[in-house]
């Protein structure tokens, strides 16, 4: 564990809302070694995006962060803005969910790609432009020199996400956080983008966190998976182990919710019954209990800790593991 590139220690995020404080992330612990990949999975509202924003120190102004985000031995949460700025780009990079909104509509692709390298690598504009074209070619964009002069709205969604990935890779970061990188894209290009990310991750030996609601996305592409529910990590295990033996009923439900391509037509799409609990009204027991078919009185009354009782390297928070 001491070799970890990133370790998230007891991180909580509280957002003030008109209905009272909302605990979006609740005492999450994670760690990631250099060059490894982690998948963070959960349905929308589970706090996975807030967790990624907490790691990136991009929380909304009024959000309150507790705990430590140790990156290369430094606590990002306690870092001065200028020191943090120097880390972003060359050490820590991100690809956001929607390339329609994460690229600035009034600046050219070139400007947005080149400015990062100029800010951190000290390249002059000619060298940065040359490098920018190379990067665009690397992420699979044809005619890169012309693309540099275009605006985001002139590109398709998939192309735009490739641009966003090129921007994220431009300063050779040690850790890349991909926050639902394919959710906003057409199904046909989703796999391409994921494969591109996986390829670049291996090629550059960078660590990567993929945040998604889709267990299928992390299946063959990550070393470890953390499943989040209602702000907490409820199961965490090496990917093969997790898929081999799920312990948490929620993870199982999540897997069942992936539509099967081989299902006969007009099959009702599987869904997890019920809704996640109101995050401003925390439950005393297991948050998943109201929707869990195995739940009993113990689940309603006491929160199960995230633990590894079998010492098998797989952690889960459940009184009645599968």
């Amino acid at each position, binding site marked *: 564990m001491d070799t970890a590139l990133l370790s998230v220690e007891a991180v909580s995020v509280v957002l003030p809302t008109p209905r009272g404080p909302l605990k979006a992330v609740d005492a999450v612990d994670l760690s990631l070694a250099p060059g490894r990949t982690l998948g963070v999975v959960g349905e929308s509202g589970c706090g996975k995006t807030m967790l990624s924003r907490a790691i*990136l120190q*991009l929380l909304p102004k009024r959000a309150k962060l507790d705990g430590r985000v140790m990156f290369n031995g430094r606590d990002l949460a306690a870092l001065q803005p200028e020191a943090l*700025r120097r880390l972003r780009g060359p050490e820590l990079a991100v690809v*956001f969910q*929607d390339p329609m909104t994460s*690229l*600035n509509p009034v600046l050219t692709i070139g400007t947005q790609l080149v400015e990062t390298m100029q800010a*951190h690598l000290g390249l002059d504009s000619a060298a940065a432009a040359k490098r920018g074209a190379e990067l665009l070619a690397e992420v699979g964009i044809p005619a890169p020199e012309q693309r540099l002069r275009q605006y985001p*709205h002139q590109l398709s969604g998939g192309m735009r996400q490739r641009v966003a990935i090129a*921007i994220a890779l431009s300063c050779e970061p040690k850790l890349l956080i991909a926050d639902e990188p394919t959710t906003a894209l057409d199904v046909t290009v989703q796999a391409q983008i994921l494969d591109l990310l996986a390829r670049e991750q291996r090629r550059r030996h960078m660590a990567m966190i993929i945040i998604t609601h889709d267990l299928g996305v992390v299946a063959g592409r990550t070393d470890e998976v953390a499943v989040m529910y209602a702000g907490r990590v409820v199961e965490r295990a090496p990917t093969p182990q997790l898929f081999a033996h799920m312990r948490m009923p929620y993870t199982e439900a999540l897997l069942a919710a992936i539509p099967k391509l081989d299902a006969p037509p007009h099959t009702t799409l599987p869904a997890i019954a019920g809704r996640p609990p109101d995050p401003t009204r925390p439950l005393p027991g297991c948050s998943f209990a109201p929707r869990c078919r195995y739940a009993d009185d113990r689940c309603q009354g006491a929160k199960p800790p995230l633990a590894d009782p079998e010492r098998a390297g797989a952690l889960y928070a459940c009184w009645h593991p599968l």
Partner: protein
Amino acid sequence: MAKFIGRRLLYLLPVLLAVTLLTFLIASLLPGDLAITLLGDQATPEKVEALRAQMGLDLPIWQRYLLWLWDVLHGDLGRSFRTGETVLAAVADRLPVSLELMVMAEVTALLIAIPLAILCAVKSGSATDRFLTGLAFGKLSLPPFMVAILLIYLFAVSLNLLPATGWIPFAEDPIANLRSFVLPALTLAIAEWPVLMRVLRSDMIATLQEDYIAMAKAKGLRPARILLVHALKPSSLTLVTVTGINIGRLIGGALIVEVIFALPGIGRLLVGAIYARDFIILQGAVLFVAVGFVMVNFVVDMLYAVLDPRIRHGRA
């Protein structure tokens, strides 16, 4: 882009035509006879009749409009009955002063408004933000002529720092010329900045919530670059529009300010023409101002397209 300009031009023509018609109608619907007004009550009927014929006042109104429009299109806006000066010469003479005043005022207003708006947006909800937005709201109720009185009292009467009236040509003494513009321009700028600040502030707050700003932060860009390049440009669309719309108010404000500070601009020409009942000058000056205003709005529309590439590429 060419298609966009073409579409706007097609719209511009009927508006310009309507503006000339309205200007003409206002002047033609004078109660009483223009000839009598010009010659005085004691004029003999023969003299009045002669002048009417000379001015074409005996023709039906639509013919008079077409004749007048024909002249206007040939650059002939008439000639003052009092000084003999042509309207065009009078306007050309005064225009530089008005332009200098308005440009100085608008630039000053933007120089005040933009930094304050950015400050408010970055610290939105803070005490600073609430104070400045409150101040801007209060200022909306303080028209230019009151600001002028206040500034004259402070800087001219009490401190004796700047001239309250008078104007010296730039060619004669540039420093004195600029000094004579300080109070008038400041008056207009103080009237303008709250509107500009409020608009930019609310747009900027919305922009700062955008994903691409989070992205810019995640890229480790300097805060100044994030604010000035990534946030300001997409936030300035409404600012440009409002700046354009406000030119109408600015023209009105400039008119009063020119009168108060005795600057020989279009506004003073207009008001002077009213005092002197010099209707030809008045009609010409009003037409000039209205057409200028329409043209400014046209240019503002074009600027829109420059600022937002999405409009330029026909996705408006």
